[in-house]
């Protein structure tokens, strides 16, 4: 796979993952309960993981 194609795919995947995490937080908030809170916290950790994966190559 070409480097530029790989880069575009990676950016798209990260953007999608971040959007899904934000969406999960918004949707899970509608239901009150420990389960929903756990899902929201997992989504928050997911967002941070996306950030860490973007940052990894600059370390």
């Amino acid at each position, binding site marked *: 796979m070409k480097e530029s194609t790989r880069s575009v795919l990676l950016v798209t995947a990260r953007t999608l993952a971040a959007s899904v995490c*934000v969406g999960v937080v*918004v949707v*899970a*908030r509608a239901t*009150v*309960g420990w389960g929903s809170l756990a899902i*929201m916290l997992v989504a*928050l*950790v997911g967002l941070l993981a996306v950030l860490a994966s973007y940052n990894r190559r600059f370390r």
Partner: protein
Amino acid sequence: MPGDPPGTLPRTRPRTGPRTGPGRAAGAAPRHGGAGSAPRRRGNGLFVLACLLPALVLFALFMVVPTVNVFRMSFYTWSGFSPDMRFVGLDNFTALLDDAQFVRAFQNTVALLVVVTVVTMGMGLFLAAIMTRQRLRGRTLYRFVLYVPSVLSVVVIAAIFSAVFDQENGLINGTLRALSLDGLRQVWLGDQDLVLWSVAIAMVWQSLGYYMVLYMSGMASIPEDVYEASALDGASPGRQFFAITLPLIWQNLRTTLTFFVMSAVNLSFVLVRAMTGGGPDGSSEVLLSYMYKQAYTNSSYGYGMAIGVVIFAFSFLVSLLVSRATRREPLQF
């Protein structure tokens, strides 16, 4: 020095005295060190300690003691007024597990933290890049307009948005009515599904200008020739943003992100308190407002402090994770 042209720095006089180090003649007195250095160091240490002492005392008195007290009080049941305090161990924390309102407040806090941070940081970066890189007409005015909310008191902002979201004569519903879009009118601060996002809009509006200006200052320090060189290589503005701007302001971004996570928790409390009071039916309650309610309105001080411990642990953990996730070597330019 006399005879030097104005503006020149004084030249260092060549050292003619005895040299310390391997080349020094045996028996020559050292410039520093020797028998007199230990008392002098001790004297310096005492002086430094005396200078630090007032700040340390104030820090201990107003930061360490209250924080430790929060942890201590979370193990007690106390009304906040009576002299009777009863040690209950972890009972306050186990009671939190069965408190649906606490869970709801926690969920609202996480939702605000995620949504407001993503929107504020994203829009702040975008607007800063536009203002810095594009030669917009009247950009000083835009910058001023966007920065004004940061100077306003949060209570004033709450009053402004209470007026904006007013059900009858508010800016939003009034505009919708004027446009004959009555079907889209909402009870912005009275609908349980909408109220938190109304508060989120106020939070973004309040913070956006401040972070935009911070990012603009970071971007302004990037040398123009870096952009010129990349433009000659055929880089688009988007590519320049991700390959030049973002890496070169990363330390700035990292600091603001960590700072924002902590300030968002505090800001949400003030806005919720002033705009909705946690209502309707607790649907806009956040952790800090719920803690305040329990400790000072419900006279359950110990229970409120247990919520405070959870807030402390949560904020600390998220800040730590953000700091770890964004850590990188600073770039020199």
